[in-house]
């Protein structure tokens, strides 16, 4: 059972983020898009933190966040977007879906590790 689910259509980003978090002792699973992310959360409800891209094929990250709160009725999992986007409109949509934070790519693990650990230990 993973503590963190990393959702990104780029294997480069998945490997980079998941690899960094695993090296720092966290249990991490990965998903290739929002649809895959939702499926994995259905089968592993113990995940505490989702780190997701926004622009992805099949299902984007914001739609996935809305479905986590709606379809899965999961109000407690922390969701953080990791994306090249910085649009206020998208952020407002994310806030409405209850996402907890926003990171503009590229990923800098040292800048977020302590917060990620707090979120999975909460």
């Amino acid at each position, binding site marked *: 059972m993973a503590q963190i689910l990393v959702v990104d259509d780029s294997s480069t*980003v998945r490997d980079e983020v998941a690899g960094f978090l695993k090296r720092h002792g966290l249990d991490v699973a990965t998903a290739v898009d929002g649809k895959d992310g939702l499926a994995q959360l259905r089968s592993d409800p113990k995940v505490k933190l989702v780190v997701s891209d926004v622009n992805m094929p099949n299902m984007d990250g914001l739609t996935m966040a809305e479905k986590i709160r709606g379809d899965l009725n999961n109000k407690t999992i922390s969701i953080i977007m990791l994306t*090249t986007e910085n649009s206020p409109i998208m952020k407002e949509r994310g806030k409405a879906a209850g*996402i*907890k934070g926003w*990171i503009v790519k590229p990923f800098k693990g040292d800048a977020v590790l302590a917060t990620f650990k707090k979120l999975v230990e909460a």
Partner: protein
Amino acid sequence: MITDRAKASFDRLLLSSLKSGMSFGGASVAVEPAASLEKIKEKKIVVLTVSSYLFRAMAILYFKPDAATRAYFNRNAAEGAPEVSDDEFLDRVAECGNVCCGSLNRDLGRYFPHVGMSTPNIIDRDCMRYVDLLGCGLLRHYKIVLEGQLTMYASLCVADYGTIDFHVDQTIEEDVDTGELEMF
């Protein structure tokens, strides 16, 4: 119609995004205009678009899957890491295009709040033979030299659906701290 100052502004924004997005592991990035598409012989391209109701901007990155290019895109790998597969290499180039175009998208979003960006697509360079069919009001090519040795190319193609007029100063400073977590 794209005004002259808007063309210059698109130009500055793309140059800035290439310089920031193409630097792996602190590598130097030099970008200069390239006169013609015919001189660009790379076989593959990554295409991304930033679109609004006024325009569609296509950012195109040309690359060769040769040893030097693969080594450059593997610069951030840990020492002793296995050689990347073909699929991993293509994904790294696509993600590099994503980061470059993401910067362009954020900068354009200051002037056109309604812009949206695509995911990256890797296609054959031969597709560029048909770029004129898009009715581009702006088509520019760029030579990118990485670490003073590796050469890649890029193009910016903007199809306009109305009058586009905006101005970007010479100095572009991104108002976002990349990699930092903004908590809500």
